[in-house]
């Protein structure tokens, strides 16, 4: 009985670690679970999309409670993982509002983050043995 409980706890910890890795680096969860093709595809596509958002002069939004839409955009972009924090720390993602591509850049950054959240959920399902 004890062994079963320990196994379950170990399995839950493993699942959460997979999810953390999947969030931090797009595709890392799938790579750790042995889904190489999916993991590499997510890694390349989502990182490229994020970088392209920065290149298009999109903004890495701060969390501003007074502006709910800005806060939601920030949460969506944070779905992209460590890249969000690294880019902000490096001073990227200032966002030039008058740039022709500003809104496109925001769309790329936000959608890359949201899609990585879906990828994390997929990794969770795989780790749980549902897929």
């Amino acid at each position: 009985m004890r062994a079963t409980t320990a196994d379950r706890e170990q399995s839950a910890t493993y699942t959460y670690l997979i999810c953390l890795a999947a969030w931090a680096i797009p595709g890392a969860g799938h790579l750790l679970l042995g889904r190489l093709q999916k993991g590499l595809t997510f890694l390349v596509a989502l990182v490229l999309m994020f970088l392209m958002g920065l290149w298009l002069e999109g903004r890495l939004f701060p969390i501003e409670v007074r502006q709910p839409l800005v806060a939601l955009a920030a949460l969506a972009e944070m779905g992209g993982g460590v890249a969000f924090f690294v880019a902000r720390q490096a001073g990227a993602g200032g966002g030039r509002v008058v740039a022709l591509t500003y809104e496109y850049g925001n769309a790329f950054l936000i959608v890359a983050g949201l899609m990585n959240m879906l990828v994390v959920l997929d990794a969770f399902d795989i780790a749980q043995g549902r897929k």
Partner: protein
Amino acid sequence: MRASHLGLMIVFALFVSVVFGTLMRDEPKEQLRFGGQLFTAFVVGGIALGWILYFFPL
């Protein structure tokens, strides 16, 4: 490099189709098929919507 609205929409559609195709299907052949269908729907839908809005200027 000059970025055009159509070009950026196509690149956006490509990224989204690649990720969703990979996410929703397991076999590479099915991923390619589903991703291709999504990409076509995005691009054709975007152009169609653009033309519809052309007749209803803001």
